[in-house]
């Protein structure tokens, strides 16, 4: 890398992150094709350490190398102690992250995929309003630093997301469903359509639940309600700063023995599979919680340096929601999360319940006070369970609780783990004693 060679002469140490990506997002609005876009992005991010201080700058200008170095050096002047060094360890084990078929998908093919999914839903109910986004992308990441690191990887991704609305007078039932894959053979349009149709079927009838304390089954997608908090507790930065309730709990059994959670960036079959994180650290397997015992926290280079521990390959630019973005500096984020499934099928979890709720989607995910584990959410997709069977959707209902208390209590995992979004494979999780508030 020319930029790295130039930087080598001007600063003490440097890291260059290069991203070249090309994606084709296709958008359907109310079941009709709306637009197709070609998005080409070229970006470079430069981190420098000069006199022990960290500087950062980014550009989209391919000829702007000298300006980029000047600006990064300027920011380092006003920066503070980096507290870490770039790592030259070349122990990255390359895994397969590229699928030629995905990279060659044409707009026409994507449009047809979209039409196929919409047709499946409309076959079931022509009144469903379906907004659909489908996109394929190819992104090439190249990272090098003055300590000798030089890694590169090309990743493909095919993703589809649905927003489905069933409209009645003054009542709109809305839900989301999605799937993504690194390879075409992992891409399951039928599966997404079936899941969506199941939701509509369960919501055909309306049910009610009185305020009180109930057992609640979180579907694989519903587990996000719990994970938002749990992940902030497992974030090495929060642990280091003392704002995680799990600080000091390494090696302690804090949760039910049925809870095991792993971060595994290079996991085969993950839609976000990668060989290394955005700092070039190998994206290996990190046990976070095993049989209820806290085993490890997530770290990037900087926080690992401050906390005097090893980085876990979780230095990610942009984070889970916004996706990889060369503009932001790396920060701690999970890569691929796996929650260990249990013994019971979801059908059995449901039929074992006398009275409770099954929660799939909520509004205001992560609002409130995730650090302390408190959640309080309005359910948007949730079903009443009565006498071991689903009796209909519930509306105007909130669930609340503290995940650290709930996950320490009685916890049962479903048997079937599913991919949720791009980087979580989770089973259903059944918890006791969740507060439910129903508007009278």
């Amino acid at each position, binding site marked *: 890398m020319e930029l790295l060679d130039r930087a080598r002469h001007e600063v003490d140490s440097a890291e260059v992150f290069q991203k070249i990506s090309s994606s084709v997002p296709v958008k359907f*609005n*109310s079941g009709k*094709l709306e*637009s*197709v*876009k*070609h*998005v*080409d*992005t*070229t970006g470079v991010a430069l981190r420098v350490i000069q006199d022990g201080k*960290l500087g*950062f700058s980014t550009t*989209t*200008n391919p000829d*702007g190398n000298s300006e980029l170095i000047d*600006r990064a050096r300027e*920011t380092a*002047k*006003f*920066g503070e102690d980096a*507290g870490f060094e770039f790592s030259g360890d070349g122990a990255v084990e390359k895994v397969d992250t590229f699928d030629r078929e995905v990279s060659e998908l044409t*707009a*026409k093919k994507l*449009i047809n995929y979209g*039409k196929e999914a919409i047709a499946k839903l409309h076959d079931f109910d022509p009144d469903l*309003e379906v907004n659909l986004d489908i996109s394929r992308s190819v992104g090439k990441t190249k990272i090098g630093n003055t300590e000798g690191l030089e890694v590169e990887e090309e990743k493909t991704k095919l993703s589809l997301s649905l927003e489905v*609305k069933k*409209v009645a007078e*003054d009542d709109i039932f*809305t839900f989301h469903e999605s799937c993504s894959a690194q390879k075409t053979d992992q891409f399951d349009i039928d599966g997404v359509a079936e899941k969506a149709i199941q939701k509509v079927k369960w919501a055909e009838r309306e049910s009610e639940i009185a*305020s009180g304390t109930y057992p609640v089954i979180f579907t694989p997608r519903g587990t996000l309600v719990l994970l938002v908090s749990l992940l902030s507790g497992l974030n090495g930065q929060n642990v280091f*700063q*003392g*704002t995680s*309730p799990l600080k000091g709990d390494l090696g302690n059994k804090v949760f039910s023995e049925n809870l095991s959670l792993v971060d595994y960036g290079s996991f085969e079959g993950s839609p976000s599979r990668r060989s290394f994180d955005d700092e070039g650290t190998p994206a290996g397997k990190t046990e976070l919680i095993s049989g209820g015992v806290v085993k490890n926290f997530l770290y990037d280079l*900087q926080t690992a340096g401050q906390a005097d521990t090893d980085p876990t390959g979780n230095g990610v630019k942009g984070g889970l929601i916004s996706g990889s973005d060369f503009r932001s*500096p790396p920060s701690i984020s999970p890569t691929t999360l796996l929650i260990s499934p249990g013994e019971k099928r979801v059908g059995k979890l449901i039929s074992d319940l006398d009275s409770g709720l099954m929660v799939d989607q909520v*509004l*205001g*995910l992560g*609002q*409130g*006070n995730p650090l*302390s584990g*408190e959640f*309080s*959410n*309005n359910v*948007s997709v949730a079903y009443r369970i009565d006498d071991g069977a689903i009796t209909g959707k519930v*509306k*105007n209902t*909130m669930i*609340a*609780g*503290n995940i*650290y208390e709930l996950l320490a209590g009685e916890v049962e995992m479903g048997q079937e783990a599913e991919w949720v979004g791009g980087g979580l494979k989770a089973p259903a999780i059944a918890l006791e004693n969740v*507060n439910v*508030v129903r*508007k009278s």
Partner: protein
Amino acid sequence: MFKKLKEGLRASKGEFTEIRVEKAQRTNVKYEKEKLMNIDSSEEIGGIVRTLVQGGWGIATFNSIDEIPKKAKRAHRIGKEVSSHLDESLKLAEVTPRKDEVKPDQGRDLREVSLDQKRDAVKKYNREMIDYDERIKSTKAIYSDSFRELKYVNSEGTELYQEIPDVTLALVAIARGDKNNIQTAHDTVGEAKGFELVQNREEMARSVASQAISLLSADPVQGGTYTVLLNPKLAGVFIHEAFGHLCEADHFYKNDRLQEIMTLGRKFGPENLNVVDEGYIRGRRGNLPYDDEGVPRQKTYLIKDGKLNSFLHNRETAAKMDQEPTGNARAISYRHEPIVRMTNTYIEEGEKSFEELIGSIDHGIYAKDAYGGQTQLEQFTFSAGHGFVIEDGKIGPMVRDVVLTGNIFKSLKNISGIGNDLDIIGSAGGCGKGGQMPLPVTDGSPHIRIEDVTIGGR
């Protein structure tokens, strides 16, 4: 000034083509606890071509300005593919072509302020929070500014150049009592102006820290149904999230049944309720002199005298619904096409004093500030920063974890009092929609009182 963009227009064979090129300079400074986590000075250039081919959109984005003609041709190819799948051609509402240059109401030019001055300000506020109390375990102080130069041309002859400054400061304090008692407080400011906004904010820093400490001894709110009094900040988020988004025509313009619910003239609230989206208020973050389709700003009454009065449109939704464009087509950056968005959205001032609003509440909650909100059309939910119990018309103890939820159609009708203290608030961050986030907007309102709001809790 528009030479390369016009080359792109000439290369395009679509029936309508627009090209937007953006140059942005940004600075970010982020402190976390005692550490400077990031200081970043960057620039970015890029653009987007959008072309209409036989009624279908083809779109291509790029970083290299020299590639505009090539990208215009690519957009045309895509548009042709799209149109072959359409059974109805898309049309755009007519607008008068404009040529204009707009410079901002610049205060202290963000580009002229040195990096160390920016860092020192943030460092000072961060220190102020850390030193406030030893129970403050962590802090965040985040400064962001940008100066964007936008060029826009289209094949109808519109040629616009706009400069848009934006500066925000967000302060967060996290306090910890015993093990699981971890409380967060935050406050933010933002304006489309200059550096003076973030100067002399020591008091803001102290009040954020004090808030986090107070929350440690606050009880979680008791879940139930209450009469609530919303402060302007929370009421602003409420009107933006719960109602503003409903008025964005792209949500429903292709759906007849949704249009039945959103009938113009339908009574949505009390007669003294007026809700406005205003494209330009001096210095406000939501400002957009011309939107990203070159349509000039406008003041749009969404609700007038309690009745649904207008929607927010881009040129496409306006044509489809046979209404006028409202200047609400916005894109967060050159990587995105414009979609229907809000600008500065607020509830107009009413007549009641704060004492009159609170005095008649026997048992309720005074909910203040907002952590955010989300809606799914009729259902809304948002989190207050904190709240107070109201007993016999007086403010009682502080409560935490106040999350409000309800049905927007019912809650608007249940507004039982509008204050005389309108405040329009520019905060950090912004609004998210359709994968485009954060878009600078402002929300505002006077204090408002709403009956029968569900508050979740334990």
